[in-house]
């Protein structure tokens, strides 16, 4: 049994909460007391059914306003997979939340209201998914019951979305006509949408092939913590603890330490306290080296024949996440996994319209939820890969040192 993380995206009222509620409910992942609470808070509904949307509706402020405004995580398990859903709001003013939820997802469900078809939001959500390189897309065309389960309506939406998918170079797109409210094609195949011959949503989620999403070729490892027990029996023990971000490491591998540019050999590998001949992504590991090199938290260990970039000036897409605007020339801290480096946003090249991918010149400052292309200068060298090639080593955040807030998502280029 493996793990699939996905995000659901849709405009307000497309039925996102109902869909998630339906997935949890029909796959029997609602626990009895939660069900009771649900029934208690379902007030006088005409048909006496439970309001599935209430299941996923978190904080009180949101309950009062009746909309999802922060990312919430939901869990459910089937005999085939464990699922983690990032439930993120879809409105443009919450782009930051959606990016947050999308950052860990390997699949995105794009919800479309069958009555409205492909709208601006659909494009924006798809663009965000493609910027963050989410490998799999499921387009769920919802509320089919409201369009008489019409195949013509469905076909038209599929054709429209194909254009978007082509433009964004989305590789793996699946379409499913559903009714979240009635449970059509969610867990079980619909009895009413007879012309649809594909799988229901849950089966699709269970079977989507995610193994090949993991990069096992370009090996990257960053030191998180140096283990030095300094006890009598472990006097000379010095191990570099971290996570295998990508690829595979073996005992005896010839490696280079960056940014020091020192070469050495892996003498021993441990994982979870036991010795191992090899470790692979995303295992935690402790790596030992034959030579005594000064290595600390944030340094990178890679195979000498497969090196990442080492630069103190980088190009990046910044998704701005703070109420305070970004000003050209401002100084920040850049946190790249476990490495923290002083940074200055030297130049803002253009603004990227997330509804159309068009470029615009930056006339004033950069506001919350805007995406820009920028040049960043760093106080010390960064060891990275382009996000497009290796997202685990191409992502970072900017931190405002005065507020300590995380102010931007950084996609290195």
């Amino acid at each position: 049994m493996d793990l699939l993380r996905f995000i659901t995206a849709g405009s307000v009222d497309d039925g996102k909460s109902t869909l998630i509620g339906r997935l949890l409910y029909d796959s029997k992942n609602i626990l009895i007391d939660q069900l009771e609470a649900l029934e208690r808070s379902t007030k006088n509904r005409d048909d006496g059914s439970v309001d599935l949307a209430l299941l996923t509706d978190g904080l009180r402020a949101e309950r009062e306003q009746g909309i999802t405004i922060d990312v919430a995580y939901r869990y459910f398990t089937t005999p085939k997979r464990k699922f983690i859903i990032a439930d993120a709001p879809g409105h443009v003013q919450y782009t930051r939340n959606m990016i947050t939820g999308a950052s860990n997802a390997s699949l995105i469900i794009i919800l479309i209201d069958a009555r409205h078809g492909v709208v601006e939001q659909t494009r924006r959500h798809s663009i965000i998914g493609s910027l963050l390189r989410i490998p799999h897309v499921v387009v769920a065309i919802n509320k089919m019951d409201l369009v008489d389960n019409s195949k013509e309506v469905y076909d038209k939406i599929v054709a429209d979305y194909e254009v978007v998918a082509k433009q964004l170079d989305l590789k793996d797109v699946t379409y499913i006509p559903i009714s979240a409210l009635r449970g059509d094609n969610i867990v079980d195949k619909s009895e009413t949408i007879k012309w649809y011959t594909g799988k229901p949503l849950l089966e699709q989620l269970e079977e989507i092939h995610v193994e090949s999403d993991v990069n096992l070729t370009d090996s990257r490892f960053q030191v998180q913590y140096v283990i030095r027990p300094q006890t009598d029996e472990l006097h000379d023990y010095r191990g570099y603890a971290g996570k295998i971000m990508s690829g595979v490491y073996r005992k005896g591998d010839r490696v280079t330490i960056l940014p020091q540019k020192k070469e050495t050999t892996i003498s021993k590998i441990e994982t979870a306290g036991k010795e191992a001949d090899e470790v692979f992504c995303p295992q935690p590991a402790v790596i030992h080296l034959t030579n005594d090199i000064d290595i600390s938290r944030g340094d990178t260990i890679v195979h000498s024949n497969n090196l990442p970039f080492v630069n103190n000036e980088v190009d990046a897409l910044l998704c701005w996440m703070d109420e305070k605007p970004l000003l050209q020339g401002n100084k920040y801290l850049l946190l790249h996994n476990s490495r923290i480096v002083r940074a200055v946003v030297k130049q803002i090249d253009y603004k990227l319209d997330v509804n159309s991918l068009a470029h615009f010149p930056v006339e004033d400052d950069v506001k919350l939820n805007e995406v820009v292309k920028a040049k960043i200068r760093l106080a010390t060298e960064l060891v990275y890969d382009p996000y497009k090639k290796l997202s685990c080593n191409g992502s970072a955040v900017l931190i405002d040192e005065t507020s300590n807030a995380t102010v931007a998502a950084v996609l290195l280029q």
Partner: protein
Amino acid sequence: MSLHRLNYMEQLEAESIHIFREVAGQFERPALLFSGGKDSITLVHLALKAFAPGKFPFPLVHIDTGHNFPEALAFRDKLVEEIGAELIVRKVEDTIKQRRLTEPKGKFPSRNWLQTYTLLDTIEEFEFDACIGGGRRDEEKARAKERIFSVRDEFGQWNPKLQRPELWNIYNGRIHKGENVRVFPISNWTELDIWNYIRSERIPLPSIYFAHKREVIEHEGQLIATSEFVRPSEGDIIALKSVRYRTVGDMTCTAAVESYASTLDEVVNEIIATRISERGETRIDDKVTEAAMEDRKKDGYF
């Protein structure tokens, strides 16, 4: 099956170990909040894996309500000795005296709410900048939105509206003086994940998790053990039953479930079969209002 794949359990474990190492790497004075329950025992197990063979890098902090199960205390002391960690115990009783707090009254006088005061005093006393806790997002709706690194202000309060975006596996633990970060390494685990992990790793647990005979009062459908803290009154139905616990909390407000499951495998099977989330079944004070947890977190509760 490819050789280079982890199952979901191993993936969760990997994520938790990564988080533990970030805490050790980013903070100067982290602590692990240890309640003695299965979640904090799992945390200790994960931390041992993260830092082996180095020494356990955080003290265990027990905020002691005084209403303990003796079995849980004995287990705690043995564990601390085995792993060679430092144990810090601060008692809610002392906070009540020092700060002239009012003890909750009633038949099941839970001190859960008062733990907040003792916890905040302890954080101040030791200047902890990070406190690792066993909270999980599946426990309750408000928690579903909490970050893995959750910043608390000087009053220990969580502000759900001002959370930092948490992207990829990058954790921003920078804080101002006086603030601290609550870290939840098992955020993405569900209750069943914890049990399955305990089973597959054969993690030892206090004996109260397994079926045993105990004298209990039946109170509104829940079974509460009689003890020096909970005295039966007239009209109570007292019975000797075979029971087990699913959390080890405050003896006054933790309910037992009737069970004959005496081995780890039996316990896990039974839990999977019952499918009742643990807070509903065993914590009396949570039923009060649906927003209870959200309010309490804003007040600095774990």
